[in-house]
Structures are given as C-alpha cells and as structure tokens.
C-alpha cells in the first residue's frame, strides 16, 4: 500500500479534529475525500505532511512509519502536498515557484545554473499546464485563481512525488476552470502513476474522476467505498450530490 492511515487521532489544543480515522491509497490510484466544512479533511493531510502532529495512531508511507518525520523531510520521501488556498509564493515568478518545487533535488548553487533533469521535469509540467509556460516570467501573485491552482499543482509535480495530496483544488474557481483542473488531475494519475488523495467540496467532480472515496464527518469516516457504488447511495446522493 502506498499510504496507510491507521486509527489516527489529532487535536487542535484540547479539541479533537480527527477521532480514529483510517484510510488507504494504493499506488497510482485516485482516492477522493469529501465532507462538510470543518470535518477535519485539511487536518488529515496536514498531519500526513508533518505540519501537524498526531496524538495517537499511525501513518505509513510505502510501509514505513512517517508520523514522526519533520515536515521538511516529507517531500523528500515522495509525498507532495498542494495546500488549501494554493499558497504559491506571491512575490516569486511562476518559474521561480516551479524551481522551489524541485528545491530538495537541486544541489547548492545549482539553482542559477541549468540542470537537465530539472529541465525535463519542467517540460513535462508545462505539457500539463501550457498556460504556466506563457506566464513563466510573471509574478505568481498576479495570476488568476485558476492559474495559481495550476501553479500549485505544477510546483508539487516538480518534486516528482509518488503520492500527491490535493486540498480543495477547485474551490473558488469558475465551472470551466473546475473542469480543466479535474481533467489535469485525472491525466496526472495516468501519466505519472502517482497516487492522489483528492479533498473536494465538489463531490460530483471528485466522484467522476476517483475510483474510491471516503466521506468524513466531524473527524470520523462515516462512509467509504467505490465511487460508483457511493454515487448510488441514497444518503450520499442527498447530502453530497443533491
């Protein structure tokens, strides 16, 4: 299994945000995680990438415990996290943001020079997001919301991850842009064979491209299953697809 979360508990101060969550993502699969605001979705991925510490339970990546690994080491293991709200570096150019995605793989002093492995990854990323290439010299802060989301995903791809954590990539985007992002996410799993954990408020979109889904409510997984089965579940239909 690529990612395995077992009976995970996480607290914000005294209040529990996750109460014994278990979940798994296999190699190259696309798993959706849906649920209402405040359910604990972001807390889960923030704990996986080390920004937050678990109070109990375990997280395994490719069979190894990672729940005590500091945040800056996580990306080196093969996990890239596209955080909620995109979080691109606003005063850097698009190109510089993409370089930061490859930060860990670049040697000291190498950032200013060209590096063929870096150029190959850059070309691949530009293939998915041609618009980023056009905007390479522009300040990231000046991009539209959709472009910033593409940049955030592109930056994560530059780390060559085997697991990609996407926290609400479609939020605040125009319907056409949501379609575009959904297509790219589906293409990424196929093309790069990277496992994806996709957090979405837009369950309709997530269910269309994911094979498996979890529904999280107030810190607990309430329903899980294949997306085509979930899409026929009356309760799920009413609350999330209605």
């Amino acid at each position: 299994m690529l990612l395995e979360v077992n009976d995970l508990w996480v607290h914000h101060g005294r209040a529990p945000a996750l109460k014994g969550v278990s979940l798994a993502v296999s190699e190259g699969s696309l798993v959706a995680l849906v649920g209402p605001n405040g359910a604990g979705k972001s807390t889960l991925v923030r704990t996986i990438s080390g920004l937050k510490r678990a109070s109990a339970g375990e997280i395994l990546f490719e069979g190894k415990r990672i729940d005590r690994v500091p945040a800056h080491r996580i990306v080196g293991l093969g996990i890239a996290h596209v955080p909620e709200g995109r979080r691109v570096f606003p005063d850097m150019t698009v190109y510089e943001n993409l370089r930061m995605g490859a930060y860990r793989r670049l040697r000291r002093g190498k950032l200013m020079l060209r590096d063929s492995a870096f150029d190959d990854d850059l070309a691949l990323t530009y293939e998915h997001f041609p618009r980023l290439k056009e905007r390479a010299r522009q300040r990231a802060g000046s991009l539209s919301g959709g472009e910033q989301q593409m940049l955030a995903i592109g930056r994560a791809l530059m780390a060559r991850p085997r697991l990609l954590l996407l926290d609400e990539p479609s939020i605040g985007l125009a319907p056409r842009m949501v379609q575009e992002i959904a297509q790219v996410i589906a293409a990424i799993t196929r093309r790069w064979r990277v496992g994806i954990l996709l957090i979405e408020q837009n369950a309709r979109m997530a269910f269309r491209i994911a094979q498996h889904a979890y529904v999280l409510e107030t810190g607990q997984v309430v329903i899980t299953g294949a997306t085509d089965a979930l899409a026929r579940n009356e309760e799920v239909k009413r609350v999330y697809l209605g």
Partner: protein
Amino acid sequence: MTAMLYGQVAVNALMLGATYALIAVGLSLVFSIMRVIQFAHGHLYMLGAFCVFYLATELGVNYFAALFIAALAVGVLGMILDRVFLRPLRGQDLPSMIVTLGLLLLIEGSALLAFGERDKRFQSPVDGAVWFFDTIVIPSERLMILGVAAPLIALLFLFVWRSKDGQAMRAVAQDREAAMLQGINVDWISALGMFIGSALAAAAAGLLLPIQVLTPAVGGPVVIKAFMVVILGGLGSIPGAVVGSLAFGALESFGTTFFGGYSSLAAFSAVMLILIFRPRGLLGRA
C-alpha cells in the same frame, strides 16, 4: 566651492547609506524570515566593533583580517543566540521579541563589565585624502568604508536572489508553511539568516570604527536607526532596507550640513513625514 561642498556631502551620504544598509539589511532579513524584530541587533554591532578594536590594537591583527574575523565570530554568536533562545519559541513572535529585548540588556551589561564605559578611539588604517576633479576632497577612510560596504551588499543580493539557500529565505519570508512543504528546513534557514544578519552588522561596526567613538552604549542608537530605516524602506523588504538606508544617509548627511546639530532631528522628521504619506514604506508591499 559649492561643487566641492555638494560633492563631499554626496559621498558622505553614500558612505553613511551603505553602512546603514549593511546594518538594516540584517534586521530586515531576520524579520522577514522569523517575523521577529531582533532588538539586540545593534548590540551585536557593538560586539563586532569591540572585536575589531581589540583584535587590531591588542593582538596586532591586520585591520581587514580583524573585520573578517569579527564578522565570522559575531555571525556564529547570532546563530547560537537563535539556537538557544529563539528556536524554542519558533512561531511565537511576541515572546521572541521580548527575548531579544532581554538579550539586548544582557549583552550591554556584559559589555560594560568586560570593556568599561570609557570612550575608545581607533586609529584609521588608511590616511590622507583623495582629490576628485581637483575640487572635491574626500578622506580616504570614507572611501574605504564605501569600497568595502558596497560590494558586501552586492554579494548579499547575489546570494538572496541567486543561491539555493537565498531562494529558500525568500520562500520562507513569503509563506513559511508552503516553504516547509517544498522541503525547506526552516530552522536551518533561520539560523543562516541570523548568521548573515549578525555578520553584516559586525562588518558595518568594524568599518565605522575609524570614524566613531566606541562605548558599550552604541548599540541602542544603532538599532533604533536601523529600525527606522527598515520601516522607511518597507518592513521585511531587502531592497527596501537598502533604499531606506540610502535615503536616510542622504537626509542625515545633508541635514548635518544645513541644520548642524539638529541633523538627526531633521532626518527623523523627514522620515515621519514620508511615512504619513506612504505608511507601508518606500518599497513595502501593502
């Protein structure tokens, strides 16, 4: 006659501006990375000055070698202060600032005990003066100060905009968590920022040593001026710190010529006035 006057005032302004920039850039760098105003910055400057003073006068070390050693030593001290006092409080901005205030008192007290309160004067390593266009005469030591400070600032810019760690510093300044997600070790970057900031302050102190009187009390006014300059340029912006320094150097230099003893008052008033119309500073982002 007037050409000579203006020429000298302009060179003086540049020299002051460049040394202020060395000091202010460190304060701004540390702030941008850690969101902490390092109040003891001026006191690290003071330690740098004493370091150069004793190395050169007591141990007979060459002045430029003394500058280098002082910068290195104070830089390492900055790193140690970060490791011991600031790292345990990482992310807690207010307690961190109180700690740097405490360090300020601690360093000043220790320096008084160690070095005494008597004024110290330092023999300039270069003497004479240089003539430009047969009209402007500039003391050599001022040219030396400018000649060392300007390349140091250029090096810093090259580092911040072109090196891997420099880019990481900019990333941490813009979004600490997003930086961690790219694999940047924020503790290392903070330590490095403290090293660079403190070392540059010590270098500035050593450079100004020949034209200033040294006592353990010089740290306070230095940090106030540097803070002023950083606010003027835009808090957290490195180019802002340089522009603010040059502007403040010019205000002070022209102020001394035309307002005499009231120059600092004139310069501070001018800064206040600028900030009323542009609260985010000259190059600060809203």
